[in-house]
């Protein structure tokens, strides 16, 4: 076992420890308050915790399977997220081939390019080439009704669900001196800090939340939750500096940036849900709604995290 594996297993043990405690609390709450499962908040909490176990298991298996496993996991996640996003977009029958191209050509190509380590191409494929090609495919069908709305939403779906999400596995290919073969821990750091920030914002908000940040968008996001969640997640991120190439101070700065980006990601995606008149993006994960409901924060923070790390730490 090498050092990376050892650190990864230490981190995993920590997460499993937290989940065991959380499951115990959830079980005790249920027994005390509503053993018949009638308290919606407690049921939601327990469903979330259960889904966390599942996500941890998937991530652990993918990480141990190496680069291929991580890329496959995120490619599938992008697929599931895109499936949720496109379901809510304005579509017409004439968009069929453009959408099929997004799913079955652009998405696999993006992840293949990451695997192939062609940074110049994967960072342009969707913002430039898909941006030009998909409207061309759509326009060839000769249907101009709602055209700008349709092509804009398709591009947005690809940017969020594929382009931004693919920055997570791209972290594997950064070349950081003294951090060789440990890149998978960067992904662990990003996901753990951002997801814990989500959970802690939810917890702080439930306990002390009084003043909503954006009452017209998301009544459950409060200043108390935001400040408490971001501050405590930043502390945890700082304490995790030993799995990263960062000093404790740098880890704190990074944690602050990605938790804030994650918060705003959640806010933006809430606005889209509100516009489309739905509560959740989908129904894939019990207690969490869809994939996008859980990933909105990671998706918004991943490109920032990738480029900050690449610019200041990586040789490539």
């Amino acid at each position, binding site marked *: 076992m090498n050092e990376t594996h050892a650190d990864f297993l230490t981190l995993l043990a920590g997460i499993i420890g937290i989940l065991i405690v959380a499951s115990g609390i959830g079980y005790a709450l249920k027994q005390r308050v509503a053993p018949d499962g009638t308290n919606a908040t407690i049921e939601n909490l327990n469903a979330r915790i259960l889904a966390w176990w599942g996500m941890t298991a998937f991530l652990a298996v993918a990480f141990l399977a190496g680069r291929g496993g991580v890329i496959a996991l995120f490619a599938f996640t992008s697929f599931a997220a895109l*499936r949720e996003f496109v*379901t809510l977009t304005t579509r*017409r029958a004439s968009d*069929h081939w453009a959408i099929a191209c997004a*799913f079955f050509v652009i998405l696999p190509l993006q992840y293949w390019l990451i695997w192939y380590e062609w940074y110049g191409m994967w960072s342009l494929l969707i913002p430039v080439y898909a941006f030009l090609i998909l409207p061309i495919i759509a326009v060839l069908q000769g249907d101009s009704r*709602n055209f700008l*709305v349709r092509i804009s939403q398709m591009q947005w779906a690809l940017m969020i669900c594929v382009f931004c999400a693919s920055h997570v596995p791209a972290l594997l290919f950064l070349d950081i001196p003294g951090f060789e073969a440990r890149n998978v821990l960067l992904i662990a750091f990003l996901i753990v800090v951002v997801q814990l920030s989500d959970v802690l914002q939810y917890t702080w908000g439930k306990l002390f939340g009084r003043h909503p940040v954006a009452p017209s968008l998301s009544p459950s996001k409060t200043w108390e939750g935001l400040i408490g969640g971001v501050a405590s997640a930043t502390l945890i991120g700082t304490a995790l500096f030993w799995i990263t190439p960062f000093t404790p101070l740098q880890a704190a700065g990074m944690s602050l940036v990605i938790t804030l980006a994650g918060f705003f990601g959640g806010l933006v995606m809430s606005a889209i849900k509100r516009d*489309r008149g739905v509560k959740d993006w989908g129904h894939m994960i019990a207690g969490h709604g869809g994939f996008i409901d859980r990933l909105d924060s990671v998706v918004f923070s991943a490109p920032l995290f990738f480029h900050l790390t690449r610019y200041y730490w990586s040789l490539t």
Partner: protein
Amino acid sequence: MTRSFLAWLTGSAITTFGRLITAVRAIWDGVEPVPSQRVYFANHTSNGDFILIWTVLPSALRAHTRPVAGADYWLKSPLRTFIGRDVFNAVLINRNAEERSQDPMELILQGLDTGASLIIFPEGTRNTTDKPLLPFKSGLYNISQARPEVDLVPVWIDNLNDVMPKGKLVPIPLLCTVTFGASIRVAPGEDRKDFLKRAETALLALAPADEAPAEEARA
């Protein structure tokens, strides 16, 4: 033995593919997934319709549920015949009155008399219009008249028409739902027209309020 194993394998492959493309979810709204004999009647927009219903039924129910499908389509090639007969165990009826040797209603009732539940599409053909539902054919009424003890369960399949529109070879992945509503039966002395109207209303009531998000203009 080999044939039934192949059928099981093909069935699993088809449902897995269906789940991958549509992440289909069942909503039991007014009826429970219990093994009583039923006729599920659903809206028909795509050839994949009964596959989605079949996918979301619990396996114990699925084993005793047979789709009623057109023989003209399902007996066209050996592969289709295998899928129609062996995998889905469909009750195959000939929709063309001049060619057929057996009355479709006779075959449907035979199927019911073996204790199986059935899936039927009372619109009679795939709906390619903009209307949510075509007027029902009389079959549903005739079935309920002949076997009044069988529950008729309305089933709304949502979004599948966008996944695989008629004439397109490649499906696009979109979330689909299958909603099962409260069962109905023909009332004593109920007129055919009144009953069919009632059945249509029961089915339409399960459609999501926002029926065609693809068509709405939000600018």
